[in-house]
């Protein structure tokens, strides 16, 4: 093979490798147990973040524009996570129940944050949302424990 030919083959191989790596890293395709676990963990993280925002509202220690914008962003993230979990095909069918529970938790978190978005200056709503987000976070943690086999 000529030098130019070798160079072309090498370029094509590098390009193929890059595309394969990008596709591999993009999260397309079936949902493995690990990915499901990570998805549910991210719900717990979203709930924790939402609680901090709600706590600011409950204590009247925030700016309403900030609380509203943060609640909107987090709510959209939770909704997106719910869609991702609902759409994906499970690699392990035995985890279908956990997936359904996770979708429900994601929708619950999204709904609570939407409430906060509507009432960013209302301390009572802030208190309630903080409390319920805490409970939603606990549910997410329980699903993670089931998936990793740590649940009683």
């Amino acid at each position, binding site marked *: 093979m000529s030098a130019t030919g070798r160079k072309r083959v090498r370029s094509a191989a590098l390009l193929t490798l890059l595309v394969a*790596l*990008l596709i*591999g*890293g993009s*999260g397309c395709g079936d949902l493995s147990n690990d990915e499901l676990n*990570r998805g549910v*963990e*991210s719900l*717990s*993280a979203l709930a*924790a*973040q939402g*609680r*901090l*925002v709600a*706590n*600011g509202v409950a*204590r009247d*220690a*925030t*700016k*309403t*524009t*900030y609380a*509203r*914008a*943060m609640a909107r*962003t*987090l709510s959209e993230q939770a909704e997106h996570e719910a869609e991702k979990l609902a759409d994906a095909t499970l690699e392990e069918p035995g985890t279908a129940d956990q997936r359904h529970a996770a979708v429900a938790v994601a929708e619950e978190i999204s709904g609570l944050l939407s409430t906060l978005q509507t009432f960013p200056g209302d301390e009572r709503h802030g208190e309630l949302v903080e409390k319920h987000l805490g409970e939603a976070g606990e549910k997410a943690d329980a699903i993670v424990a089931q998936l990793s086999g740590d649940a009683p």
Partner: protein
Amino acid sequence: MRAILKIALGIIAAIGGFLDIGDLVFTTQAGALFRYDLLWAVVLGVVGIAVYAEMSGRVAAVSGRPVFDVIRMRMGFGMGLAALIASTIVNVLTLAAELGGIAIVLELLFDAPYSMFVVAAAIALVGIVALLPFGGIERFFGYGGLLLLVVVATVFHQNPDWGEVGRGFIPSIDSSTLYLYFVVGVFAAALMPYEVHFYSSGAIEERWTEENLKENRLNAIVGYGVGGILAVGLVIVSGFLFHPLGVEPDNLGTVALPMQGAFGETGLLLALGGMLFCVGGAAIDSSFAASYNLAQFLGWEWGRYQGPRKAPRFTASWLVFLLLGIAIAQSGINPVDITEYSVVLAVVALPLTYLPVLLIAGDRSFMDRYANGRVASFLGWLYFAVIVVLALAAIPLLLATNAGGG
């Protein structure tokens, strides 16, 4: 008195230019994920940028040549062009991320659509650059950036376990790819190439000579040192509040939450205000750096002090880069994602930026008695070795961790 004021202004300018969206995001995420374990990486990055900023400022003051002039002179046209392309891509991505960052902070403060604020931010930047002299631009963003000192106050308000904080400054290597990715990210965020491009060109804009070398050293050490203290503070407040709760701070607004927790609405507003000025200053720095590099490489007249009439191509290129930044920021890609990619891609461009600076600063035939001494040479080569290792590791780590997503 005038000299002290000059130093103070330089220090303030360094704070504004150092804490950009990349630093804000990576340091906060580092604290949330690894608590205080990555404090040593922040210090490593701060010392690195101080070492190279001092060198590039010294070369500019002594020879009248900014970094990109030196790159072309030392590495020739081919490698110089490669460095220009790499740094321009990183600078434009950084600019887009900073414009997006300004828009996000304005959205948090005024709750209006993000896309409107991207355009408003760009118009405001054009207005500020048109109205203020170079020193005035630095002071405007630098003084504003000092609002972020609320982070330091938050650290003391939280009163963390100081023993645990202290242990974070001792380098430790965790074998997990996510940890290594954050080591690279935190280090690279501190050493973004635009900082030395801007710093050395700024030295020419301010007409530095050998008489300014002391000022240059103080600016580099104390200025970046203070910026580093703020970055360390961000890791600590994030580690204290977010780590135990499992929060993953992937929004710029989350960075301000610890300050709200400590000081209520006042803390929140100070943090958001400080972030606005820091990110705005970085937008100026990265956009100017892109135009400086292009103009210096092609031999155009350049510099804010020359004005649009004397340096029309420089001014036009600045506006074109700003428009590109707006287009990317408006594309719908999250600015935090843009910054993560630009920071990691910057690592790959780092050797092309820092090797010529190191070589020229140590060249006695060029720098005479102002060439690197033993300490500067040792630190310069040590850091260059670290930069090369990280440059090789950056892309595999980016892919292996799905850009830090685990």
